[in-house]
């Protein structure tokens, strides 16, 4: 683990780099060619897709944190709760990304499809994923069993199963949602090369920003854990008024 000062410097650098990348992404999105069929709303691809890619990537960070917690909880408790902090940070950023991803998808759907929502496989499995991570956070917030870390780690494992289902849904089923643009195996599919700079710069920038948010939230969770630990130590050390 890096020392706190080094970690703080890295975090600030990461923050600055993310902002620069987001500014470049916005600039490229503004000057990119306009989609002939959809018009300006086609530019939603530069924001909706990165949100959803983040929403399907960060659950793996949550899964790694949860599995590591389950592995270390009886071997090295300090390490285990550090991984738990990583898991909760990733879960929150997942919910954030999926929330704005779903919302932007609905705002895109209305002018293009004529409807806000449809219960096709992609949209439904994505909503289910959002609900799973919301329930993960609710369990952490309101459970009073004393086994909340273990319970949430197990929920995380089940929630992660939905990620490949969301990803594959447009390949397995004929959906209202467009079929995959990349890695589809269909020679007719794909993004026009003139849109690559705007698309990939925004994708990279929002992922960079997302990982920054996870790191920032991790710092907060570690502080809360340390404060909780200090409070317990203080309670043990303080003689009760008897």
């Amino acid at each position: 683990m890096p020392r706190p000062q080094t970690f703080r410097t890295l975090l600030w650098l990461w923050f600055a780099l993310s902002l620069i990348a987001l500014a470049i992404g916005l600039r490229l999105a503004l000057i990119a060619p306009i989609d002939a069929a959809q018009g300006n709303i086609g530019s939603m691809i530069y924001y909706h897709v990165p949100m959803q890619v983040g929403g399907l990537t960060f659950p793996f960070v949550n899964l790694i944190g949860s599995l590591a917690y389950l592995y270390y909880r009886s071997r090295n408790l300090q390490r285990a709760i550090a991984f738990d902090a990583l898991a909760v940070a990733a879960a929150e950023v997942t919910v954030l990304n999926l929330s704005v991803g779903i919302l932007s998808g609905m705002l895109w759907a209305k002018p293009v499809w004529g409807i806000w929502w449809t219960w096709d496989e992609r949209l439904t499995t994505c909503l289910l994923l959002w609900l799973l991570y919301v329930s993960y956070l609710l369990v952490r917030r309101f459970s009073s069993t004393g086994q909340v870390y273990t319970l949430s780690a197990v929920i995380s494992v089940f929630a992660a199963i939905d990620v490949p289902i969301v990803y594959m849904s447009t390949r397995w089923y004929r959906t209202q949602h467009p079929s995959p643009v990349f890695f589809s195996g269909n020679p007719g599919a794909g993004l026009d090369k003139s849109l690559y700079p705007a698309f990939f710069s925004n994708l990279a920038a929002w992922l960079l920003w997302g990982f920054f948010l996870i790191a920032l939230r991790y710092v907060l969770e570690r502080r809360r854990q340390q404060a909780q630990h200090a409070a317990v130590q203080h309670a043990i050390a303080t003689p009760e008024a008897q």
Partner: protein
Amino acid sequence: MIHLDMSKMADRHLVIAYAAILIAQFGYAAWVAYNIKRNRPTP
């Protein structure tokens, strides 16, 4: 290059979505940063 026409629903939706994303992402970052300050360990 984008030229927005706010009388069109599609363009309004694009602006609303972008604003929602910025508010959510930066608002969340600000909330986390505020709580990190609030939970600063006391010497």
